[in-house]
């Protein structure tokens, strides 16, 4: 069973190229090929759920020389999130992408993105991390520009330049780390650092990684690309970028590298919390004034990533638990909100909130899903967003960060204001005259949104009772990084 681990990367990677060959001869099969791969990956991740941690040596070369893929409680959580969200997004994409040409290329890039993300999550080797990160990023640069309008090309170019800068900085960090420790295997690097490495080199790599992964996860001084790139992409890709890419490439890599490989040090905790608090406040203030629905959601992504960073940066058991729970919840409700914005755009042709109104009467399924997601993100009980924000705020009070706790409550309040505005202008109010004869979106699009809406309710109501064990095992790994050495090396 352990030998099935590389399939998470191999299946989407192979299908990405296979799909392009097949569609040269048989047209219109790529959505179904993609859907089959995504369902297979979800089955595989459920099959692996709860498996003991282990490593897989690629090519039969044992670590520390060879490349490893590592399955543990943190990667298990992320793989599960990726598998569930991609299923919902793929179901949504099948009718939505009919508006575009060159669909086979879309699905190939989409599969490459999934392969890259799964690779980043599973890898146990620093250079491999960089390679998979580039696969996912380059696929997403192309996907942001998929509409080839002037605005989309500009956003993609900006994203490409800043993403390229961050990748170069991360590569420089990896090179310095390799020079200092003489190995690329993550577990081996962790063991070498414990034996003692020059502090100056180590802190310089910390700075490089903070900047590189900060750019990937759009923390505030590095956030300039996100409000352009995320709204410009087609709606399913916006959902993937905001729901998964910034988490897998950004937050997950920070958690893996700073907590598990290096072992957390106080200065990094402080920096992460300050950056998180800045993102939270600035993101939400920029979001409140927006009238473009997708742009508003993109600014909220920055703000919500701040919550996750504050929770993780606190590095207390409750704080990390809250951060990881919010990561899971944000993936669910932000993908759902982006899918809803796509559904509104699909029927009405606009995403300006001022031109919408009263949509819940014409589109009951989309409208109620959107309403559930908006209530979740603004932290209304009993939806999932409430619990994770509540845990983070309690953790902040427990560790006597009163100022930060008050800021967090205030940002939550601002989020509520912003989403009350969204609901008032899009779902309720008066239906404009020219939108009188719109209809509900196709069944597959509805099913993708309803899956995520049910998850929002389910995670809120049932998760505190049943699902906590997955989060707790991931949290325990981040608190006791020494355990990583026990199973990631022979």
């Amino acid at each position, binding site marked *: 069973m352990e030998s099935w681990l590389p399939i998470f990367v191999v299946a989407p990677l*192979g299908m990405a190229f296979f799909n392009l060959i097949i569609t*040269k001869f048989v047209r219109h099969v790529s959505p179904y090929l993609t859907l089959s791969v995504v369902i297979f990956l979800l089955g595989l991740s459920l099959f692996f759920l709860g498996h003991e941690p282990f490593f897989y*040596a*690629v090519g039969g070369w044992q670590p520390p020389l060879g490349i490893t893929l590592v399955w543990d409680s943190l990667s298990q959580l992320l793989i599960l999130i990726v598998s569930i969200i991609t299923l919902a997004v793929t179901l949504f994409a099948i009718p939505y992408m009919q508006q575009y040409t060159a669909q086979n290329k879309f699905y190939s890039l989409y599969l490459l993105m999934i392969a890259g993300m799964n690779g980043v999550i599973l890898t146990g080797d620093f250079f491999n991390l960089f390679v998979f990160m580039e696969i996912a990023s380059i696929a997403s640069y192309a996907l942001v520009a998929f509409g080839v309008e002037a605005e989309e090309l500009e956003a993609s170019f900006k994203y490409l330049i800043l993403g390229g800068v961050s990748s170069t900085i991360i590569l420089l960090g990896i090179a310095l780390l390799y020079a200092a420790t003489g190995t690329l295997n993550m577990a081996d690097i962790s063991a070498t650092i414990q034996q003692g490495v020059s502090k100056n080199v180590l802190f310089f790599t910390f700075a490089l990684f903070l900047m590189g992964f900060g750019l990937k996860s759009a923390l505030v001084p590095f956030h300039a690309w996100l409000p352009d790139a995320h709204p410009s992409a087609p709606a399913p890709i916006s959902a993937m970028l905001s729901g998964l890419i910034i988490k897998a490439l950004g937050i997950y890599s920070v958690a893996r590298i700073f907590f598990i490989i290096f072992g957390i040090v106080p200065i990094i905790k402080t920096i992460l919390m300050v950056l998180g608090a800045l993102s939270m406040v600035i993101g939400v203030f920029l979001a409140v004034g927006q009238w473009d629905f997708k742009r508003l959601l993109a600014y909220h992504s920055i703000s919500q990533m701040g919550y996750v960073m504050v929770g993780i940066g606190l590095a207390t058991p409750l704080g990390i638990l809250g951060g990881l729970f919010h990561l899971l919840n944000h993936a669910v409700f932000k993908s759902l909100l982006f899918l809803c914005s796509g559904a509104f755009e699909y029927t009405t042709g606009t995403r300006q909130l001022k031109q919408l109104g009263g949509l819940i009467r014409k589109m009951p399924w989309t409208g109620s899903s959107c309403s559930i997601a908006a209530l979740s993100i603004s932290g209304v009980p009993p939806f999932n967003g409430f619990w994770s924000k509540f845990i983070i705020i309690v953790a902040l009070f427990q560790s006597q960060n009163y100022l930060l706790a008050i800021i967090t409550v205030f940002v939550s309040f601002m989020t509520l204001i912003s989403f009350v505005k969204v609901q008032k202008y899009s779902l309720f109010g008066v239906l404009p005259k020219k939108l009188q004869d719109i209809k509900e979106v196709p069944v597959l699009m509805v099913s993708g949104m309803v899956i995520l809406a049910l998850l929002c309710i389910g995670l809120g109501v049932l998760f505190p009772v049943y699902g906590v064990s997955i989060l707790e095992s991931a949290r325990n790994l981040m608190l006791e990084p020494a355990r990583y050495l026990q199973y990631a090396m022979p």
Partner: protein
Amino acid sequence: MEGMTFIVKTITKLLIGAIFLFAIYITFYGHLTPGGGFAGGIMLACGFILLTLAFGKKMSLGKLSDFWASLIDNLGAITFWSIGMLGYLSGYFFMNFIEKSNPFGLFSSGTILISNIAICLKVGSSIFAVFLALTIFGRFISDLIASEDED
């Protein structure tokens, strides 16, 4: 007349065989000497680009059309992926499953030689396809200039 002057065409005719041969040599001996699939593929693509520059697009598209460039591109990737999968079937993903013989021979490295050939096909055809994609804009611009001249 399409393409460049008589001198360029003659030199290209003389050199093109040598360029392709050197590309193939670099690819096949990648595991023994500096080079490999990527370097060989770039040389292959450069050969095609030289043909395009010297003789015009029609001639080089006759040798390798955009359909075939993109097909070979995908086939190269699929071949590389299949080598990994064949290794997977015999134990580990990307396992070197072919028997290795005496060092410094052409067939001494197991799957590395096949991988290099797959990478050469992938890189060569995709770089040429990128070049073709860039020349599409060239056609737009020359159409624009022509229409402006008519006005």
